[in-house]
């Protein structure tokens, strides 16, 4: 495979730095190249011509396009799979290996597939391994071993990726002459421009056009010097989404592997040029069969001699130029076959790893190791298609053209037509000016609509649309397939024969043929193969290419890493002001949505006992809090809660439940009246955001006349609940301006005063079932107050408790948790809050459904359950079954109660089982059945509430 150096003497426009060299390995052997070399150019220069094995038949593959989308040049570099070897620059120390071969590139076991090639036709899998059924998994295992591509490693590190937003007036996709000139014209007309080029340098096809070198340098210089233009090279526009949200993958930003730029382009100019189209003929996938642009790139950019003796099939000037390049490079020209005169090649012959001779249409055979084809172009209309355009085929020019573009997308360059370089320049500049005009109009509109923008400049510039001249199309012969069959899709190993067979089997549209053969579904995504596939299908069903149309182009235009798409990990986390204390005191973190909370500090059951016996303190800062002010707050409360609020006096606190309009329990919490027209509503921690928007929705859309102002205050206050028989003793030591005696400050009341020198308000409520005070202080003082309470209560045995202890205690008290003991279908009466729901109120959210529920039987109910054997704690979600095994309910909460020394549960059961004293059967996860009793009260402990009223 190696046959000595193929490096040419210095070429006029080469991009390699001959003064330096870099060393790397390929499949374990050492090679060297120069900075500026791609992996493939360096290997080719060293005589390596085979870079991979094909997907299905495992045929050796070499260079085809010598660009990013070169299907046979995907390689593994270190832990990175599927690296584009014709694009990626070599670096010192790179470890490169070929993919798709076992055990080696030279000896490949799966190449045996090749021998059975004629049976591996389209739809092969669907027709085989049908019987015996049990064997398919075994076949599958073997087949999946042949999956193509590189290898992943579980200990590969994530690496660094990033994102950036951009708001250029104009994004230009493609940095060839057309793109550069359009960018310059737009910039000169006052627009800010982002010019994006997939290759490592600007220039497009002019980069390998020595005769245009000077002109190119001038344009590149002007682009680089223009303050309005930001140039991104080695970057690719991967997609155009609704409202011109343009995705750009930047591969050369320092410090990151890849970066995703999200640009809101006011106008997108697509100047993506043309992709050269391979020719379908027998042997067209052998190493040594290349496109004319590949040859031109290899010789001019990297000074690599692509072969020794060439047959060139040319149907255009690029092919002609390739002949000149080859001659200059000292490659013997065995034959020039002119497609414009109807001549063509039929077959390339030779061993698997290369070409020996070429059979021409006139029957002659020519010795050659290189076959160069220049049979036409594919317009990369992908981005235009994403913008809603349906490109139309022009048989005279033998390619598709854009036609119906939305106003914020323009196209120029090879994708629109040909013309002379002057005509191209004129077109590109007109497009650039028009892009500027449209984008500046949009800019003014957005400035006018956005209250924070600067006032738009008066329109001094000429705002009438710029005429865009037509770009003439050059005639080109339609050359897709020779008289022989060959590969259409090089990534997927799909031949023209497969497509013909698919059509015969009824897959007679391009979409069905695509899916049946997988043509266009590989890494090149149709850039090289779509038009040939369409042409083959058209021929097979005897329709025109225009009729058949193309498949749908979809993002990304070029593949982009998951890392770049994901960017830096931005998953917000929220902490209470007491977080540093929790951390220092061994709290086990509990992830609750964005909140990180203390689950416990080591022993939750001991925490429970301490609260029941002494006094404990818990951080409840995440409780949702809404400050409600205005004369109509009580009307709002009546609207959103199922219970009544009119009579709540200043200083009073009330528990409430909200239902959605379908009657399903939405949230619960207590709301207190702090002043005549000022209330504080608390919500569940997870429901805080939802309830806020829910309340705003009522105010803004149903009752805009009500005067209520809502302020989210969740973390304005550090909130802590201090609970236990000794709490009053404790608080009396550090609370000022509040009379804590039971008569002055009774259960379900709120008072304002000071604690540890800080303004606070506190309410007497009791989720835990103990005498308890919920204290809210301005958040900045939270840590100070928390520590002061702990200090003041040290001799009383105060200890902090976490969420788990609180859950145990609330279960002992039988309080349900919305979303745990209720679910997405459970309506109010099922939750057992009959006493709360006031159907005689005029209106409240969900009232009609709750009215009907109250008139109906057969729903479920939340009940307290105690297993008859108190040592058994049925795992939450254990099912409640009847004698026949049918599901009658489930356990929603269960714990061993440290206070009662037995297991306790809440559960949901069918209504007929919900009567106190009935015994239900719980099926434990291991299948055992245990009995449990339905209790009279939800509260397992102190059902009369004497402790918390104390």
């Amino acid at each position: 495979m190696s046959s000595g150096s193929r490096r040419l003497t210095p070429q006029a426009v080469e991009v390699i730095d001959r003064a330096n060299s870099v060393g790397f390995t390929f499949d374990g052997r050492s090679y060297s190249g120069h900075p500026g070399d791609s992996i493939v150019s360096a290997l080719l220069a060293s005589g390596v011509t085979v870079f991979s094995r094909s997907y299905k038949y495992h045929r050796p593959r070499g260079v085809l396009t010598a660009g990013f989308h070169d299907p046979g040049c995907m390689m593994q570099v270190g832990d990175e799979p599927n690296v584009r070897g014709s694009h990626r620059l070599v670096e010192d120390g790179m470890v490169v290996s070929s993919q798709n071969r076992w055990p080696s590139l030279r000896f490949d076991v799966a190449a045996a597939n090749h021998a059975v090639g004629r049976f591996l036709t389209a739809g092969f899998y669907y027709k085989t391994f049908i019987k015996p059924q049990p064997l398919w998994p075994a076949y599958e295992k073997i087949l999946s071993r042949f999956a193509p591509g590189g290898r992943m490693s579980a200990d590969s590190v994530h690496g660094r990726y990033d994102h950036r937003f951009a708001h250029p007036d104009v994004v230009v996709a493609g940095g060839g002459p057309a793109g550069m000139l359009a960018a310059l014209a737009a910039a000169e007309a006052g627009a800010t421009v982002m010019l994006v080029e997939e290759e490592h340098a600007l220039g497009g096809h002019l980069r390998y056009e020595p005769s245009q070198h000077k002109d190119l340098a001038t344009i590149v210089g002007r682009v680089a010097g223009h303050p309005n233009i930001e140039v991104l090279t080695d970057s690719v526009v991967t997609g155009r989404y609704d409202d011109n949200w343009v995705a750009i993958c930047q591969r050369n930003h320092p410090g990151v592997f890849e970066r995703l730029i999200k640009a809101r382009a006011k106008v997108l100019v697509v100047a993506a040029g043309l992709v050269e189209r391979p020719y379908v003929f027998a042997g067209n996938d052998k190493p040594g069969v290349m496109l004319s642009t590949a040859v031109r790139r290899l010789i001019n950019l990297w000074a690599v001699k692509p072969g020794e003796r060439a047959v060139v099939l040319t149907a255009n000037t690029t092919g002609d130029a390739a002949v000149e390049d080859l001659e200059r490079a000292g490659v013997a020209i065995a034959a020039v076959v002119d497609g414009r005169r109807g001549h063509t090649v039929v077959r390339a012959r030779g061993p698997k790893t290369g070409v020996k001779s070429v059979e021409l249409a006139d029957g002659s055979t020519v010795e050659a190791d290189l076959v160069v084809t220049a049979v036409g172009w594919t317009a990369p209309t992908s981005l235009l298609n994403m913008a809603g355009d349906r490109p139309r085929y022009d048989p005279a020019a033998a390619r598709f053209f854009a036609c119906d573009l939305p106003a914020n997308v323009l196209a120029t360059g090879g994708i629109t037509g040909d013309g002379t370089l002057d005509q191209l320049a004129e077109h590109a500049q007109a497009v650039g000016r028009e892009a500027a005009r449209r984008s500046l109009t949009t800019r003014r509109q957005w400035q006018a609509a956005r209250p924070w923008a600067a006032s738009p400049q008066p329109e001094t510039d000429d705002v009438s649309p710029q005429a865009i001249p037509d770009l003439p199309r050059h005639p080109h012969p339609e050359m897709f397939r020779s008289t022989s069959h060959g590969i259409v899709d090089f990534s997927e190993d799909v031949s023209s024969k497969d497509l013909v067979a698919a059509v015969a089997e009824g897959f007679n549209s391009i979409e069905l043929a695509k899916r049946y053969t997988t043509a266009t579904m590989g890494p090149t995504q149709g850039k090289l193969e779509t038009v040939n596939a369409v042409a083959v299908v058209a021929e097979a069903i005897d329709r025109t290419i225009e009729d058949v149309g193309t498949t749908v182009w979809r993002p990304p235009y070029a593949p982009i890493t998951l890392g770049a798409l994901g960017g830096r990990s931005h998953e917000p986390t929220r902490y209470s002001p007491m977080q540093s204390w929790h951390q220092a005191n061994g709290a086990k973190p509990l992830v609750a949505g964005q909140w990180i909370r203390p689950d416990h500090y080591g022993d939750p059951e001991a925490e429970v006992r301490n609260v029941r016996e002494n006094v404990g303190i818990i951080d409840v800062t995440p409780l949702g809090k809404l400050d409600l002010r205005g004369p109509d707050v009580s009307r709002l409360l009546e609207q959103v809660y199922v219970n009544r609020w009119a009579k709540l006096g200043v200083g009073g606190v009330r528990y409430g439940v909200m239902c959605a309009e379908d009657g399903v329990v939405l949230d619960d919490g207590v709301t207190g009246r702090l002043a005549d027209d000022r209330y504080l509503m608390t919500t569940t921690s997870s429901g805080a955001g939802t309830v806020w928007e829910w309340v705003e929705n009522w105010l803004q859309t149903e009752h805009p006349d009500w005067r209520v102002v809502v302020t989210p205050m969740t973390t304005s206050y550090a909130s802590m609940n201090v609970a236990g028989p000794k709490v009053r003793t404790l608080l009396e030591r550090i609370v000022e301006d509040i009379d804590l005696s039971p008569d002055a400050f009774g259960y379900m009341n709120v008072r304002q005063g000071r604690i540890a020198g800080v303004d606070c308000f506190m309410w007497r409520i009791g989720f835990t079932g103990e005498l308890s005070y919920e204290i809210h202080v301005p958040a900045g003082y939270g840590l100070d107050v928390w520590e002061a309470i702990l200090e003041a209560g040290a001799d009383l045995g105060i200890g902090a408790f976490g969420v788990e202890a609180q859950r145990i205690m609330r279960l002992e008290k039988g309080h349900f948790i919305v979303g745990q003991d209720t679910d997405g279908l459970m309506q109010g009466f099922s939750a057992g809050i009959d006493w709360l729901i006031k159907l005689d109120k005029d209106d409240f959210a969900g009232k009609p459904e709750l009215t009907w529920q109250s008139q109906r039987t057969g729903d479920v109910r939340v009940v307290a359950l105690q297993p008859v054997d108190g040592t058994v704690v049925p795992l939450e979600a254990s099912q409640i079954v009847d004698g026949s095994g049918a599901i009658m309910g489930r356990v929603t909460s269960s714990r061993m109660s440290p206070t009662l020394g037995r297991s306790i549960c809440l559960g949901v059961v069918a209504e007929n089982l919900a009567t106190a004293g009935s015994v239900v059967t719980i099926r434990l996860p291991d299948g055992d059945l245990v009995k449990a009793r339905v209790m009279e009260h939800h509260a397992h402990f102190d059902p009369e509430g004497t402790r918390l009223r104390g």
Partner: protein
Amino acid sequence: MLLVPCPWCGPRNASDLRYVGETSRRPDPASVTPAEWRAYLYDHANPAGPTTETWYCRGCRRFFVAERDTVTNVFTSSRPPGRQNPEEPR
């Protein structure tokens, strides 16, 4: 990323807003029949074409009503919610 025209903020990224749904009128709970109420809860015109819908802008914290074509996703207008016209669905 769609640009949604907030009547207060101008065009904003859709991720700055929450889609509430097709704009509908809440029946009078005092007289509503189950069928009417459930139609309000569950039924949607769900047209493939122009529709009237409610959005909530997390920037200015306002609900508003917009007209959009569900096939092209192009917005044609937006306005504050409200009862200016009692016949108009909210």
